[in-house]
């Protein structure tokens, strides 16, 4: 089909801009990693010095090992637990599932920085729960500053990532296979482990790979819980490298970044292959549409107990810790809650212009930035919608690339882009830099939202417009866009929450004028300003909660 220039130009432009935004920062990282000094240094030269240096550093290998341990361990925790929760929520008659569901998703909407901080103030050596436990039972038999604790916490807080895929797959499974096992005498949990979960193995595998590479990207958690004991993982190793040689060690950071991407990118590609496989699988198994809930009977206590325990540990403990800590002056052994209650922490935030600017910027980047981002994602969606050519496949892969780049690295890469290209320098100290980095980092997530909306539009509705005489752009404007408008509003809300939650991407982009809560938390935590961290964390949680409340009120689907 010979398309006119009016049709191809906007598409070519969209693809070009997307490709630039995704590939320029990555190329810059790769380039920087092959230099022996920062790129602005006049004495730079091409070479492998940076790799030689980090490969000779035992800390690097220790960090690598820790990352692998944590990633593997948290996968082993998150996958079975996520699968089990999905089974209970999706296939059984447990009561209260309506209000449990949003709670199950909370950890994926709260900043890991905030959650980690929550664990410190709730369950750390002098945390609320530790102190109370010692007062009541004479001991608090847990510690949070160890690899094991980090693994367990990371595993528990990544349960939602497994849960969403597992429950989507379970929805497609006919209930007759479960009933057959039940009739043969299997208990509900037996049914889950011997029938339902094996049948959704492709989805579990897919989410297992997801959790594993998310493990390599962890930053907030090891920063807060690993640092006090000197436990490094790859991202915190990179973060601490900044001034290892006395001067900015950009080349070393780039080399570490390349190593991280070298681990995550193959996993992202693997994940894509698995997704294709699981779709095929689902469509085979999805035939029997009849769904019947499995009666739990007496097992409901166990099921309810598992869910309750998970919610307590993964949601209530950290969030209540933050909420309490934000309203006290200090806390420790022998302190009486009633005597330390205060609003001073919020007063300090209120009086500090950079904090207020951070809050304002965070709202701005979520609301206005989120809208612009959804508009951009929609444009990309339309560039590939119903076109099955090489360019569409290119974009499909392109949008996956940022998935493999942890936010911390992406922020660093964008910082370099803004420094490297002089015309862009003025934008560096505006919120635009952060917005661009956010939009690229969340590209894969956002495109899934957009394309699931687009997929729901029946092709015939568009074809009807074309045969009535509408050129492609008018089909998009008059038919497709109006039909997906609710989906887009929902995406805007989800992107808002994601942007409120984001922290690592903004760490390196933090500058006067571009403060956002997430990055401020990192820098305040580094400086030990616990009171401010507590207050800002609570503000951050409230912002996300507002988004979540609106989403629930209007029935926005919280997962695609």
């Amino acid at each position, binding site marked *: 089909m010979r398309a006119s220039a009016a049709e191809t130009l906007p598409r070519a432009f969209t693809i070009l801009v997307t490709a630039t935004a995704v590939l320029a920062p990555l190329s810059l990282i790769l380039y920087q990693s092959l230099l022996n000094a920062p790129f602005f240094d006049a004495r730079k030269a091409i070479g492998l010095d940076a790799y030689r240096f980090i490969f000779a550093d035992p800390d690097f290998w220790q960090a690598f090992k820790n990352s692998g341990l944590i990633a593997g361990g948290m996968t082993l925790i998150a996958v079975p637990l996520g699968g089990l929760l999905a089974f209970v929520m999706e296939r059984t008659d447990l009561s209260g599932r309506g209000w449990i569901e949003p709670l199950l998703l909370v950890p994926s909407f709260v900043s890991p920085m905030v959650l980690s901080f929550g664990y410190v103030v709730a369950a750390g050596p002098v945390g609320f729960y530790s102190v109370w436990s010692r007062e009541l039972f004479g001991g608090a038999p847990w510690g949070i500053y160890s690899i094991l604790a980090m693994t367990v916490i990371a595993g528990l807080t990544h349960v939602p990532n497994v849960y969403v895929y597992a429950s989507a797959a379970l929805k497609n499974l006919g209930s007759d296979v479960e009933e057959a096992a039940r009739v043969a005498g299997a208990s509900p949990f037996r049914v889950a482990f011997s029938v339902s979960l094996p049948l959704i193995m492709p989805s579990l595998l897919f989410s297992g790979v997801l959790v594993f590479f998310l493990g390599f990207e962890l930053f907030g958690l090891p920063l807060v819980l690993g640092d006090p004991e000197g436990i490094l993982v790859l991202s915190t190793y990179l973060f601490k490298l900044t001034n290892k040689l006395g001067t900015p060690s950009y080349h070393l950071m780039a080399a570490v970044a390349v190593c991280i991407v070298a681990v995550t990118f193959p996993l992202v590609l693997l994940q894509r292959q698995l997704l294709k496989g699981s779709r095929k699988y689902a469509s085979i198994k999805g035939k029997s549409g009849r769904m019947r809930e499995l009666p739990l009977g007496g097992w409901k206590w166990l099921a309810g107990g598992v869910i309750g325990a998970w919610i307590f540990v993964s949601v209530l403990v950290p969030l209540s810790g933050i909420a309490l800590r934000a309203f006290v002056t200090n806390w420790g052994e022998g302190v009486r809650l009633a005597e330390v209650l205060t609003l001073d922490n919020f007063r300090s935030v209120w009086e500090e212009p950079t904090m207020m600017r951070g809050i304002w910027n965070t709202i701005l980047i979520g609301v206005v930035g989120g809208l612009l981002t959804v508009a951009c994602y929609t444009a990309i969606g339309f560039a590939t919608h119903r076109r099955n050519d090489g360019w569409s496949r290119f974009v499909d892969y392109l949008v996956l690339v940022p998935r493999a780049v942890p936010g911390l690295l992406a922020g660093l890469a964008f910082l370099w882009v803004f420094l490297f290209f002089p015309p862009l320098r003025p934008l560096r100290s505006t919120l635009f830099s952060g917005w661009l980095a956010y939009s690229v980092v969340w590209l894969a997530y956002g495109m899934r939202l957009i394309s699931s909306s687009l997929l729901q539009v029946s092709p*015939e509705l568009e*074809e*009807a417009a074309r*045969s*009535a*005489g*509408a*050129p492609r752009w008018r089909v998009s404007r008059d038919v497709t866009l109006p039909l997906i408008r609710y989906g887009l509003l929902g995406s805007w809300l989800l992107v808002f929450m994601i942007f409120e939650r984001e922290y690592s991407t903004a760490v390196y982009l933090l500058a006067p004028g571009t403060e956002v809560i997430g990055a401020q938390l990192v820098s305040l935590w580094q400086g030990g300003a616990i009171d401010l961290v507590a207050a800002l964390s609570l503000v951050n949680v409230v912002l996300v909660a507002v988004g979540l409340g609106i989403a629930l009120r209007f029935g926005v689907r919280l997962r695609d």
Partner: protein
Amino acid sequence: MAELTVENLHLRYGDNPILKGVSMNLDRGEVVSLLGPSGSGKTTLLRAVAGLETPHEGAIRIGERVVFDSAAAIELPAEHRNLGLVFQSYALWPHKTVYDNVAYGLRLRKVPQAEAAERVGQVLAQLGLGPLGARYPHQLSGGQQQRVAIARALVYNPPVILLDEPLSNLDAKLREEARAFLRELIVRLGLSALVVTHDQSEAMAMSDRILLLNNGRIEQQGTPQEMYGSPRTLFVAEFMGSNNRLAGRVAEVRDGRARIEGEGWSLWGTPKGETAPGREVNAVIRIEQVKLGDGPEGNRLRLPLSTSMYLGDKWEHLFRLGATALRAHGTGDLAPGEYWLEFPPDRLWLF
């Protein structure tokens, strides 16, 4: 004059050939049905004509205009073909009112507001949708939705309108009314229409000419009478009506007739195509052509009655011939026993 000409169209999905050289034409003011079993490629052909699928060989002309020609590398996009297309699912835009659905084609053609309003009003009235303009598609019944889809395709006066199984989404009772309505509308407005259907009675009732598509090829085309009354292949004979079918061997050929024999029976029939003694053939006769006779005279067999079924307007009797069941219509019930069945030789086709 041909409004639509399709020449030697080939189309495949991947390696899977769907259309294997289809040629057809549609004259002005004619209603042609594209008939065939499900999966035979009817929708694909219609979509290729509309410009929604790209054939890899062949040519399509609308009037004098070449809209597709693989040899000359011409392919006009769907929006420039100016055809009316009615989808099987109707594909009404759920976010537009009935009026806006219908008016969209005029808006695209930059017809002034006032004139557009008049034309939409006119076509809605013609289709009996007069007062429904302000409704949304989900507020309409199935029959009304179907008529909106037709109105939307008619409003800009396309030279040809294409309808993909326009009746299949209606329930049985409504379908017969809609069939009559559609035929009457097409004739009254003098439209040239290509109608896809998998239902032979629908095709016969609605069209001037039928194209029977089988496995990507046109098996036979002709008027409904020709298709029903003189099928050229077993497939056409089987597809166009309800038949009795007997397998046997040709025993002798004489005067354009042939005698076919089976186990313990023998009948005269009319060979369709070449035949010679000894050849295995299928004998096919429409159920309504089998008569109950009163004696052995003529082309008859004496068979035991196995059961009778009351169908309301007639009875259907089931007879047994070895392992085969033979059906015949009658006006009343029959007592158990054996009966003479007559098979008029010119109605018993041998394939």
